[in-house]
């Protein structure tokens, strides 16, 4: 391999790394505090229709088995934009795309439980 080609590869590699880095920066994993808020939101407020155990209600079950065959991108779109013709509203006023993505990842793995007293309070 001659030097110009090597240089080329090196630059490409660098750009790729930079690209990956940029992508990561655009969809960061939510902070632990935000994750706690998201777990609360999903279990308590999504739970209004999907059930606190996410086993379904007026909204369908959100169990890992139920979601396994659905591509992440379509599930994220449902969370953010809702599903016309059903009661599912879009949540994009409250969630970023990366937060919706984190929720979908967690749902597919089995969603984390609520801590015993959530949100924390002196009364419990």
């Amino acid at each position, binding site marked *: 391999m001659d030097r110009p080609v090597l240089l080329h590869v090196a630059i490409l590699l660098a750009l790729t790394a930079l690209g990956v880095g940029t992508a990561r920066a655009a969809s960061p994993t939510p902070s632990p505090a935000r994750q706690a808020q998201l777990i609360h939101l999903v279990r308590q407020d999504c739970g*209004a229709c999907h*059930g606190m155990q996410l*086993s379904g*209600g*007026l909204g369908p079950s959100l169990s890992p088995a139920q979601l396994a065959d659905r591509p992440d991108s379509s599930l994220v779109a449902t969370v953010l934009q809702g599903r016309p013709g059903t009661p599912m509203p879009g949540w994009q006023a409250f969630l970023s795309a990366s937060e919706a993505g984190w929720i979908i990842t967690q749902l597919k793995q089995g969603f984390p439980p609520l801590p015993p007293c959530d*949100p924390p309070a002196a009364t419990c």
Partner: protein
Amino acid sequence: MRPTRRHLLSLGASLALAACAHVPSPSPSPSSPPAGGPAQDTPPLRGTGDLGLVIERASGSVQLVEHSGRSALARITGLGDLSHAHVVFSRDGRYAYVFGRDGGLTKVDLLEARIDARVIQAGNSIGGSISQDGRLVVAQNYSPGGIRVFDARTLAPIADIPAEYAPGKVSRVVGLADLPDQRFAYALFDGNEIWVTDLSDPVHPSTTRYPAGRQPYDGLATPDGRYFLAGLFGEDGVSLLDLWHPERGSRKILTDYGQGSEKLPVYKMPHLRGWAQAGGEIWLPGVGRHELLAVDARSWQQTARIPLLGQPVFAMARPDGRQIWVNFAFPDNDWVQVIDTDTRQVIHSFSPGKAVLHMEFTPRGDEVWISARDSHEVLVMSTRDFSPRARLPAQSPSGIFFGHRGQRIGM
């Protein structure tokens, strides 16, 4: 193997103390037991007219409360998934029937603060009702879709009525309400119908079907049991059935409501079950609109539209009908608004805590109990001057149910 019923009753009192974590009560200790009486084995003699349950939705527990002294008496655990729980009461006031999301149906003895009987009756349930004669408890289920009938004394199954609206197609059931003459009305969210099931011969139920409109999301029987209303999500309007004249069929009211305007997102479905009949009008939450609607209960014409700060969930009439109290869907669920039905004005807007889920009036409406899920607290307020009277700690409280519901139609 279950012990006999008599055995359970005698065991119950002593077990109650062990099984239930007693919640500290702000009221003075109960009066002394009779001389020579077994102090710790016999629950204090008391009436049931001021008892109720507060659902603790995240922990599968309920608190037994009394509203004369505004205090918690006991916590009863082991009731399963209590998201969207509902409670009805036996006519003697002693027992509460708690319907859980996971299909659990639990009969709670309010006097002994313990579970008397419990069955898992379905996979996914959203509530239930009790018959006019108090002998039948009926659960409404999403999965398997339909209603199921149980003996109120033993919880033994009596009848199963699948909501099969087309061959092989079973609907989720909403809005179940008890009616006079051992009948029950309910709506089929997927089947777009209202069904009325006559359980006067419970082993041989007979069901009459009526068209409802698209996606009925909840139902309501008027306090006299004459009318059943089903709110529609999939189209504008409310479906109405006159049970004095079922032969006339169902009809739609409020069909022009909100025509042409874009619906707002609904982050939590409104509930119609609020006793919101007041002064000859029925007050309903708008769906997809931040409004409260009043409808004349004779002409069924819309009489008022009150703008509110968010999507109403419950619109509950104070028992005298002078006020309507409204709570809201996410993200406005930290708020409550009070409407004067005479002036049709919002007379009070306030935040009783975080994530307000439910309100329950004392039987004659002097006070209201409000659950604030994320404040882990139940607030007791005067409805006359809106001053706080008490705050009771509770874990993620949701529904509050007082025993006087057992004496009313359609609860």
